[in-house]
């Protein structure tokens, strides 16, 4: 470990750090441009130069307009994403645990999940939309659109759970059983707490995938649009800095959410560390 602990960094560190920095610039460069342009003056357009500065475009976002109703579609997207996220966590965590043993049909189910993940998104929506049409059902937010999104978030959740479960040591569960825990207690007090960081990751990932989903949803949504579909409608009708204002707002909200969750995790870690410390001092005494 000498080289990792000593302070002298190999040249590759600097090369890769530069590459990483360049990637971040590449990632944020265009985003930064839209943050600036979202403060475009009322007479300005979607490109430079800036014609004064204003918050007109932000006000526009919150007003239900003729072209698009951003606030309502935003609520729809949030509630859909929340439902998708909860279902994905419950179903894929259970499946991830189930896949730890070989069972008849495990191979078939694995490849079904892979196929569902790599299927071009629009085609999933096409198939489900076609099915609804054949059955004479009306597509809507919490039926066909929810279903179409699950075909994407569930395989994602399953694969993420493989990564999480791989690091899980089964002897902890065995120990719990040996100490007399019931199957439910074992799950509740041992398995889930240990897997929790991974589970939170799955929940956040599923939420993001759903919240931003366009191609699967467009043919299955019915008459009431989610936010990405509204944005798409905005693009095809008229381009105004309103789009950039939406971008700025969503990034601001995500930054806030991430900061809060980071602080929570840090606090949790500190508390856990203190508990461990207390326990140690008790045993020593």
């Amino acid at each position, binding site marked *: 470990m000498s080289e990792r602990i000593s302070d002298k960094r190999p040249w590759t560190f600097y090369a890769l750090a530069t590459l990483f920095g360049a990637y971040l610039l590449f990632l944020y460069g265009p985003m930064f441009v839209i943050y600036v342009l979202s403060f475009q003056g009322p007479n300005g357009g979607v490109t430079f130069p800036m014609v004064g500065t204003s918050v007109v475009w932000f006000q526009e976002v919150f007003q239900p307009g003729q072209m698009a109703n951003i606030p309502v579609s935003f609520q729809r997207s949030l509630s859909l994403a929340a439902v998708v996220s909860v279902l994905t966590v419950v179903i894929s965590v259970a499946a991830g645990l189930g896949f730890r043993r070989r069972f008849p049909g495990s191979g078939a189910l694995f490849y079904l999940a892979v196929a569902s993940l790599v299927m071009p998104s629009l085609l999933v929506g096409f198939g489900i939309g076609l099915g609804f049409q054949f059955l004479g059902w009306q597509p809507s937010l919490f039926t066909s659109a929810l279903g*179409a999104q699950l075909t994407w978030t569930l395989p994602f959740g399953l694969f993420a759970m493989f990564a999480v479960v791989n690091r899980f040591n089964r002897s902890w569960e065995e120990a719990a059983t040996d100490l007399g825990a019931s199957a439910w207690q074992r799950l509740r007090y041992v398995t889930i707490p240990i897997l929790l960081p991974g589970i939170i990751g799955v929940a956040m990932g599923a939420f993001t995938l759903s919240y931003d989903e366009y191609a699967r949803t467009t043919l299955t949504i019915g008459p009431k649009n989610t936010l990405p579909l509204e944005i798409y409608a905005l693009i095809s009708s008229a381009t105004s800095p309103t789009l950039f204002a939406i971008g700025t707002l969503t990034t601001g909200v*995500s930054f806030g959410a991430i900061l809060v969750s980071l602080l929570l995790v840090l606090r949790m870690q500190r508390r856990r560390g203190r508990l461990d410390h207390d326990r140690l001092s008790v045993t020593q005494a």
Partner: protein
Amino acid sequence: MSTTGLISDLPIGLKKTGSITPKRRSTRLPPWMVSWFQVGPLALILTVLFALPTTLFLIVSFYDYDRVGIYPAFMLDNYRELLTTPATWRVYASSLRFAFIVWAITLFLGFNIAYFLIFHIRSGVMRTVLFLLCAIPFWTSGIIRTIAWIPFLGRNGAFNQMLMGLGVTSHPLDFLLFSDFAVIITYVHLFTLLMVGPIANSLSKIDPALMEAARDAGASRWRTMTDIVIPLSKTGITLGSILVFTQVMGDYFVVRQMSGGQSASIVSMLSTEIQAMQYPPASANAMVLVIFVAILVGVMMKVVDVRKELVK
């Protein structure tokens, strides 16, 4: 098991699988049946919402149609028409070319970024923060992230202004926007994280002691890389490659928006047919794309047995 920590840190391939399936003393159900209950909901949803609809458009792809409706039939005309149109082949060739270029770039970027984050960043908190920095733009709609390039790359865009300010060029560059260049840049912007995630996951399972041993045995940095790091991260590389490839092949929006009408994508061609309610030819088109993607993914998964590495 006092060595549990050590064993769980080893790359999966080296783990003894025998120790992982313990005998339960008091289970009423056989283990495989417990597994069935656990995977049941997943199997049900994927069957109803994925397998059935796919079968449905497989059937519809053989149907007959006219301006009024679609009619049950078994004919291959939809396929014949599709496969004898030069435009189809052109679109497939152009999509494949995009997919290949984007794959190469994202693989290079993704691997190096993942390597940097896993092996060069020492503090866990710092690593989390840097990961989050990579992920934050993904909370902004992909559509907005795509069109964000327009004011950046345009004639009067930020990039041209910068180049002219630096004196690199005297007149704005035109090829930047609404071109293949713009399409590739946007894909790389959207999809690099899909490569970073799986590769970082693979890399994090490599015991650093293994690399140290290689160094002590006199291996060069490059040898360590090609003989240890890359083979042990091939699951992540394969998964990332599959994701990037299929995302590009299934793209609907980027080519339409960023190529300025110079290129088309397979799916946007298909969506035109769907909007015209020509379901049978759209279904045939969809089936061809599905088979194409299936073969691509099948080949990649043949090279690396992802299943064996992921599920023990």
